């Protein structure tokens, strides 16, 4: 039947990032001093508008052990809900001091990762709906064959979360809670704790985006 199918190019297949993913994506964590400008987990360095928050957590495997070699990236809108991307179609100017993207590795000993960022604004959903504030997050690691996509929502946005089209598209209501970060204050700093469970009873919802 092959000859009868319309053929287009196939996406290059994914492979695991492996245990040494830091060499290429976070060379400083691997002890390599090669680039003048290094990517990192500080999204507030240029002083963008918005409320400062710290997003932190751990990633756990199927028996509850934290992954100490995981790489985490986030992508989010600015405080007004505009993405600093040419592909944002909202006809509004994004905060020029906000890049919207960051990358970090879990600590080699504790498995804890964090980002310093701002709380994003609401962004439009499909068909003129509104999405609750959220941060897009992806993890790569040894043993993970294709990067796992998820979203981080905020526990103090319960009204917006209740109307969020993506959360509401998860038919198993108890699973929606796995995407909601817990708020705490530590020395005046606002922390959102977001633990990711790759497998098992508390398994985080992962998305095919």
């Amino acid at each position, binding site marked *: 039947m092959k000859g009868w199918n319309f053929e287009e190019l196939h996406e290059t297949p*994914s492979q*695991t990032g492996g245990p*040494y993913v830091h060499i*290429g994506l976070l060379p400083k964590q691997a002890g390599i001093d090669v680039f003048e*400008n290094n990517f990192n987990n500080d999204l507030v360095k240029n002083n963008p508008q918005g409320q400062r928050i710290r997003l932190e957590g751990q990633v756990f495997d199927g028996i509850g052990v934290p992954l100490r070699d995981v790489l985490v990236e986030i992508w989010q809108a600015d405080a007004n809900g505009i993405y600093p*991307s040419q592909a944002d179609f909202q006809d509004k100017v994004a905060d020029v001091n906000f*890049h919207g993207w960051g990358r970090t590795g879990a600590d080699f000993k504790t498995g804890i990762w964090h980002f310093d960022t701002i709380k994003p604004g609401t962004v439009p959903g499909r068909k003129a709906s509104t999405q609750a504030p959220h941060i897009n997050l992806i993890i790569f690691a040894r043993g993970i064959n*294709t990067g796992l996509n998820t979203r981080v929502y905020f526990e103090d946005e319960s009204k917006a979360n209740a109307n969020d089209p993506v959360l509401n598209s998860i038919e198993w209501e108890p699973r929606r809670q796995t995407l909601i970060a817990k708020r705490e204050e530590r020395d005046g700093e606002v922390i959102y704790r977001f633990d990711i469970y790759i497998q098992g009873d508390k398994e985080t919802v992962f998305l095919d985006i």
Partner: protein
Amino acid sequence: MSQILWGAYAQRNTDDHPPAYAPGYKTSVLRSPKNALIAIGETVSEVTAPHFSADQFGPKDNDLILNCAKEGLPVGERVIVHGYVRDQFGRPVKNALLEVWQANASGRYRHPNDQYVGSLDPNFGGCGRMMTDENGFYIFRTIKPGPYPWRNRINEWRPAHIHFSLIADGWAQRLISQFYFEGDTLIDSCPILKTIPSEEQRRALIALEDKSNFIEADSRCYRFDITLRGRRATYFENELH
């Protein structure tokens, strides 16, 4: 139809990728979700992505032969790797960030957790990065990595490979993978490569010897093209908006 209105990215064909749970690659057993992924309709969050500019990068960022050389040149086979990044509809992917990392000629990584007896090279780091140009073209220079042993089964060996990562126009295109070198016999026995279900897709990760682009008395050359997901255009209702 003066201006194209872009819709969503075409859905990822999961048959073209490894499954999350692949028991032959043992680490995947406890690091793969039990639940099925939940597919969502794309929004502005999935079709946007960060922008990087070439002036953030140093002049040797794509030259792994020189970017960590201290007292001399690294040991090993001098190779140039080049190719094009396109989307599945054949359009060039411009200004994408391509990052690469690899072992040295001995198969040894410059990483605190690599204890393989193969020797470190004081003049080789093993990472580089570049942006694709207006045609989707990229090029970098390196030392061909050696194969290396790892503990999956006890006598497992990776083929020579270079890891790569792409951040392009949409978050949905985010991709990390590895490419291999034409003719390496370890390609047929690698459990990581075998997680990919089809022969055609496994072959899509093999860089080909590009003989006419060898540089005499200097470097050999490999050609490797990359395909990312592509967006459909919308001519009727645009549900993204």
